[in-house]
């Protein structure tokens, strides 16, 4: 083999290895998204936003490709949540509330199933490894490519890829919100007995429940608005309409996402005695922007920078 051929082979080998290592963070993120749905685990995680902190005991099981979870608040009121597939049962002192889960990506299942949609808007990089809940975890940072969204720091279990910690920071690296496991165990076996023990003493899974909430309408036949100049990377993922209390009209909630961040855009008719509002405010980790247009109060709400909610409020055109 000539020297030229040897060099060429080495060069090709180098580039192919480099390509694999560059793809690795995205591959890990994809494995992480799958792990959070597939793994069985039990532990306690601690959540902190600017306004409050809470601890939650969690059990997650995947039985016959269906996800079940049980969450119990350890601070404050002893509320409990059970998930079975896409149904969520919230049990509190006031009784049982059943919801259909659509866009709620609850910790640790914070990643979307389609990781590719994140590539346009976030730059991915490895950070330092550290010990979380007695397990080694690799930090992966999703840094926003623009000023329209926050940065997401996710510590992923080195062995089974479950996200163990999530920190959301703004563009000045200030922490907006975080959740982290303090204890976690993966060695529990969950089977149909678990389902019986955890669920069936609280909820009758075979029973059909009727909703009491007559104000929520799940159809919208006439979109009478246009959207222009939406913030880059956000797509409409849901549209909910509700009947307005005291008015014989509907108001609308449009939900947009870039895969990690979510923004709600509300279009609400205003009552005669109500004064319309304009401007923006911050409540905890949530920014809100309001604009008034043609008898409608437009409000956008989300854990995104103020510029993003402002752009959403100005995007409606009648």
């Amino acid at each position: 083999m000539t020297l030229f051929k040897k060099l060429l082979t080495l060069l090709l080998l180098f580039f192919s290895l480099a390509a694999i290592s560059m793809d690795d963070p995205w591959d890990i993120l994809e494995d992480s998204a799958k792990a959070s749905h597939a793994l069985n685990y039990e532990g306690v995680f601690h959540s902190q936003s600017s306004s409050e902190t809470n601890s939650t005991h969690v059990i997650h099981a995947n039985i016959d490709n269906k996800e079940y979870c049980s969450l119990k608040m350890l601070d404050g009121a002893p509320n409990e949540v059970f998930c079975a597939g896409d149904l969520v049962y919230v049990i509190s002192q006031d009784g049982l509330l059943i919801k259909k889960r659509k866009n709620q990506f609850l910790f640790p299942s914070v990643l979307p199933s389609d990781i590719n949609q994140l590539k346009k808007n976030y730059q991915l990089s490895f950070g330092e490894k550290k010990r979380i809940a007695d397990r080694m975890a690799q930090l992966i940072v999703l840094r926003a490519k623009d000023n329209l969204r926050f940065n997401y720091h996710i510590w992923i279990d080195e062995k089974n890829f479950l996200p163990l910690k999530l920190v959301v920071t703004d563009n000045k690296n200030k922490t907006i919100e975080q959740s982290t496991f303090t204890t976690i165990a993966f060695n529990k076996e969950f089977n149909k007995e678990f389902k019986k023990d955890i669920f069936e003493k609280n909820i009758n899974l075979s029973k059909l429940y009727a909703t009491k909430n007559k104000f929520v309408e799940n159809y919208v036949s006439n979109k009478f608005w246009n959207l222009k100049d939406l913030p880059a990377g956000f797509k409409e993922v849901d549209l909910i309409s509700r009947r307005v209390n005291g008015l014989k009209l509907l108001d609308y909630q449009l939900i947009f996402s870039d895969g990690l961040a979510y923004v709600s855009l509300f279009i609400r008719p205003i009552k005669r005695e109500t004064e319309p509002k304009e401007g923006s405010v911050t409540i905890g980790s949530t920014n809100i922007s309001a604009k008034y247009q043609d008898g409608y109060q437009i409000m956008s709400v989300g854990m995104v920078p103020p510029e993003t909610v402002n752009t959403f409020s100005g995007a409606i055109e009648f």
Partner: protein
Amino acid sequence: MNEKISSLFDSEINNKEVDTLLSKKNKIAGVRSSMSEYQIISDVLKKNTVLPNNNLTDKIMSAIDEEPTQMGGIIKTNSANTAVVSFDIWPVLGSFAVLVVIASTAFNIEVNNVSTSQFLAKEDIPKEIINAHHAATANNMNYFIQVGDSAK
């Protein structure tokens, strides 16, 4: 059919006939809109916006109230395939004026149309807005549980 609806608003039919009319409201096209129009005519003739207290018209308005109303403007379209229909403008304007009167009275729309607005303060944010956002998008179980409580 129109005669029966007219009689209804003049309180000249019995309860059984009212039930028959109501059952036809959703089955036969145009019955519901005719009811709204006759209601307005009846109110205007009586110069009375309060409905007569005979339970018959109350029953009809309650049934109409149960139906959500979607208000909307004209959807703009730039499609090259949009058909253009020529028409005489005055009948259209006349119909539109009637529709405005009917809509504003029949549905009692109380939408504010003022041009001035006030600066947004934290206390101006309706709690149901924040709750609705977290209920639909939360990635933090604490929000989800709290929203679940307040949504009752």
